[in-house]
């Protein structure tokens, strides 16, 4: 014992003379970039230290030499494989150690912004984010956004005035779609047609399920899908892609990016066209009409000084469609109409980003956007106009955002702004406009690497409906290195749509009228003065201000690394939805028809389990299986005439929850991705959709056992080969077994395609 102390003492003296009681170093990733927030444990000394923003660390051993002059350093961080190194203290001298950490197989250095409005590691954020990478999109041969989203677990493409997305059982109205954080506007009957969006220049798609209104405001009730466009790292790069497939579907893309010292530019052009297809041989209208569209986008980034940066993005999309339709005249003969439609949308968002000091960022931007549709129906024989309608929507959003990292343990985001919206369309006389002002605040507290807690809220004050406060709390807890738990509780809302607020529509042939909640008083009074109202069913004075549709939701999930190569993700969700807006009669007209308006009528719940297993078999093969169980039901309240104990008549309200249409209880997918060093690649993907109710044949408002459409499975395959490093050829077939059904208009049957691309 005594001799041991003596040796220690001698060694301390020795080490002092060698000046090696301080270990200095830097932690970097495989691409030599510094990693912050890495925990370093000097095992023999029980000391822990965390790397700073530049990845550097310094462990002061206070002259302690330990038992044998050896020290074991253990570096650990979420997203990286733990690393252990043994060092001899006396050999350290004053050198700076470099510790290189390897990424976990699944956890590439994916940074996401949709979860927190700041750039964060996907492994750290407190709400689960699914990322679809650009490579995955490319390997899958996807062209438009609906192609790739339809292959993801828990997402379902549903068709209603375009291809929309169903998330956690919500119709497509309730998911916010963004490109680089800017909302895409322009919905028809609530659906934002995903085929408007090309996925050629996409770096990744971030998918957040569950209400996210606390950060993103209206429409983020079921979730948020954010498309992050590519940003090149090369000084000059260009790419061309051409693809040709069945139904004369041609897709041409080109992009060019130039990166100078302080000035980055990126230009993207896409043309997509098709001859369309028909799934119903008895109809002269094509299921998907002949169309051609163009997308242009431009991004620029300019460093004005070390602290001040300017960036701007602009995107323009235009499409024309040609179809036929028919009407029967009063004599009963068919007349054929040429149906031409066009749509365009534009968005621009210039921003200044100012770094006030190291940890405080200020962003000031002004997003401006418009969406326009034109529909023109002409008699094919005479060329006379049957109907011409135009719809113009304008959207402006000045916004200020401040992000502040007080310490490594405290991150805050604050934002405020205005949304100014205008409408210009026939059915909306008086060109309605409305204003939303909003404020949001979010704070994340990271007491340790194991735990992170985030809380925040957003206030949306609106000129036409009740103001909204949307809070959200979420937390991540790393039970062990292999088990991460995430939970959240939050509120989401969806603002009433234009038609629900401002519609002023009189059907001249059928004789009924529909008014929005903001136009109904005026409309009823006018009809009354004209003597067209027989009876008012709901007194105008008792009308309440319309409320936004809203939901409270809870999500609880886990990511479990069963082995280094197998990750299992599971999430349980429950959404309680209130005040869904529907039409109801408000008055009876003298012609026997009704006057309708919009009311907060329905309550709904959706709940389920989503789970996915990903297995990296080896460096060439990745396989995954996904499944979602969904239970979506609407509350029905019915007054029934029944009898009391004495047999006398009483009216009682009976309530029950009944299944909703267009929701599959079971859905899932299996995928296999392969690529090798020789440049060969291949994929097989199978998507299953379980049975679902579609047509309410008995008109009771919910799905009965006789109203189910059968389940179906769609298989897609592709093979690709890289040639001479810069070129790539791909051959693919979608819907291999030729599933065709008029109820799935987005699936034209078996589709062959061929793609060639070059990147310089």
């Amino acid at each position, binding site marked *: 014992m005594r001799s041991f102390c003596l040796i220690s003492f001698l060694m301390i003296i020795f080490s002092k003379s060698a000046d090696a009681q301080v270990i200095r170093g830097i932690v970097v990733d495989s691409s030599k970039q510094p990693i912050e927030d890495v925990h370093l444990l000097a095992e023999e000394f029980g000391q822990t230290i965390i790397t700073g923003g530049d990845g550097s660390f310094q462990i002061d051993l206070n002259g302690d030499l330990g038992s044998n002059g050896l020290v074991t350093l253990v570096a650990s961080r979420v997203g990286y494989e733990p690393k252990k190194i043994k060092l001899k203290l006396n050999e350290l001298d004053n050198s700076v150690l470099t510790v290189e950490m390897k990424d976990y197989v699944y956890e590439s250095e994916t940074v996401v912004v949709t979860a927190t409005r700041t750039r964060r590691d996907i492994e750290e954020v407190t709400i689960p984010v699914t990322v679809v990478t650009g490579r995955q999109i490319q390997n899958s041969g996807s062209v438009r956004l609906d192609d790739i989203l339809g292959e993801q677990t828990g997402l379902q493409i549903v068709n209603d005035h375009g291809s929309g997305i169903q998330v956690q059982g919500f119709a497509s109205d309730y998911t916010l779609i963004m490109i680089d954080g800017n909302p895409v506007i322009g919905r028809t009957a609530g659906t934002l047609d995903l085929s408007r969006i090309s996925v050629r220049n996409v770096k990744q798609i971030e998918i957040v399920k569950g209400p996210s209104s606390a950060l993103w405001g209206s429409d983020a009730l079921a979730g948020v899908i954010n498309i992050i466009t590519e940003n090149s790292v090369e000084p000059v790069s260009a790419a061309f892609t051409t693809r040709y497939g069945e139904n004369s579907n041609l897709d041409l893309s080109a992009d060019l990016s130039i990166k100078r010292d302080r000035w980055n530019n990126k230009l993207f052009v896409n043309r997509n066209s098709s001859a369309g297809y028909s799934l119903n041989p008895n109809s002269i209208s094509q299921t998907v009409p002949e169309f051609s569209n163009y997308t242009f986008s431009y991004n620029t980034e300019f460093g004005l000084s070390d602290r001040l940066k300017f960036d701007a993005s602009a995107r323009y999309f235009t499409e024309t469609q040609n179809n036929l339709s028919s009407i029967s005249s009063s004599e009963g003969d068919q007349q054929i109409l040429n149906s031409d439609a066009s749509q365009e949308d534009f968005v621009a968002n210039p921003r200044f980003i100012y770094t006030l000091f190291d940890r405080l960022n200020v962003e000031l931007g002004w997003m401006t956007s418009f969406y326009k549709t034109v529909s023109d129906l002409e008699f094919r024989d005479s060329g006379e106009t049957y109907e011409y309608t135009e719809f113009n929507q304008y959207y402006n959003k000045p916004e200020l955002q401040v992000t502040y990292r007080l310490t490594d343990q405290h991150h805050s985001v604050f934002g405020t702004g205005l949304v100014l919206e205008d409408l210009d369309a026939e059915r909306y006389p008086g060109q309605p406009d409305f204003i939303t002002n909003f404020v949001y605040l979010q704070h994340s507290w990271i007491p340790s690497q194991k735990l992170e807690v985030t809380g925040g809220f957003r206030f949306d004050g609106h000129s036409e409906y009740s103001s909204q406060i949307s809070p959200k709390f979420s937390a991540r807890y790393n039970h062990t290195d292999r088990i991460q738990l995430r939970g959240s509780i939050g509120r989401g809302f969806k603002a009433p749509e234009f038609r629900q607020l401002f519609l002023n529509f009189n059907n001249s042939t059928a004789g009924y009228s529909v008014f929005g909640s903001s136009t109904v008083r005026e409309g009823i009074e006018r009809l009354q003065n004209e003597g067209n109202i027989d009876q008012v069913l709901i007194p105008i004075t008792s009308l309440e201000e319309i409320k936004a549709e809203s939901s409270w939701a809870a999500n609880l999930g886990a990511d479990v690394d069963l082995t280094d190569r197998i990750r299992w993700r599971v999430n349980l969700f429950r959404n309680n939805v209130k005040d869904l807006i529907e039409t109801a009669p408000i008055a009876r007209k003298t012609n026997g028809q009704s006057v309708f308006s919009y009311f907060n009528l329905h309550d709904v719940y959706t709940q389920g389990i989503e789970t996915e297993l990903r297995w990296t078999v080896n460096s060439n093969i990745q396989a995954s299986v996904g499944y979602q169980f969904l239970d979506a039901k609407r509350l029905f309240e019915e007054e*029934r*005439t029944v*009898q009391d104990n004495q*047999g*006398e*008549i009483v009216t009682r309200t009976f309530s029950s929850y009944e299944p909703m249409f267009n929701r599959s209880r079971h859905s899932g997918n299996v995928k296999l991705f392969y690529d090798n060093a020789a440049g060969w690649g291949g994929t097989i993907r199978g998507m299953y959709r379980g049975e679902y109710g579609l*047509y309410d044949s008995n*008109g009771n408002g919910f799905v009965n056992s006789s109203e189910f459409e059968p389940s179906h499975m769609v298989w897609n395959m592709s093979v690709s080969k890289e040639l001479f490093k810069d070129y790539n050829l791909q051959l693919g077939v979608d819907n291999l077994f030729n599933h065709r059904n008029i109820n799935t208009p987005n699936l034209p049957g078996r589709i062959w395609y061929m793609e060639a691309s070059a990147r310089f």
Partner: protein
Amino acid sequence: MIEHYISNKTITFLPLLALVSLFFFSSCSDSGNGPEELQSEIQAETVMDLHAPSLRDNPDARFVLFSFRSGQTVDIADSASTSWDVGFRGTEIILNSGISGPGEAGLVRLDVAFDQVTIAPSEGYEADGETLAMADWYTYTGMNEPMRAVFPNENETYVLRTADGNHYVKFDIISYYKGNPDTSTEAFANLQRRPASPFYTFDYVIQLEEGLRDLQ
């Protein structure tokens, strides 16, 4: 010419009868001097294929009148009497009251299954007005499969007071088609092969004892 077949099967529920009388006895014992004990006499009937052509079938079609008390059709010549309770013509069903007849027939519509109605309410009976009391007794499928079919509302039971105002009846329409066919078959969905209409099949249960409301 009216063709119809009535399957008479008077059912006397003896044990039930005893139970009902017991109930009456006990419930009235509080008043001290119970009224004269009434003997419940219940008769359950099924009427098959009562043919009641609509105006479309025959522009001169008259209502087919029916008496729950006799279980027989009543000649149209007696339409001004209280000898009939209900009348059928196509999908129209009238009651002998209000604008349709001189009687005191009335109707209560209950959102309860037929078997679960055990007693008639004492009040709330509706006479035929401009809107017939029995309007909307069916659902028309229109363009939904099976197309253009008439289905009686489910889980709806009609309690009627007879035209003389003295008896109570519960009444359940089962089919509008000849032979009460299975409506889920392809034969039924096929408009050429669908059995003829309007042929009413209905169940009813009548309390023959005047003034008693028990229907079970």
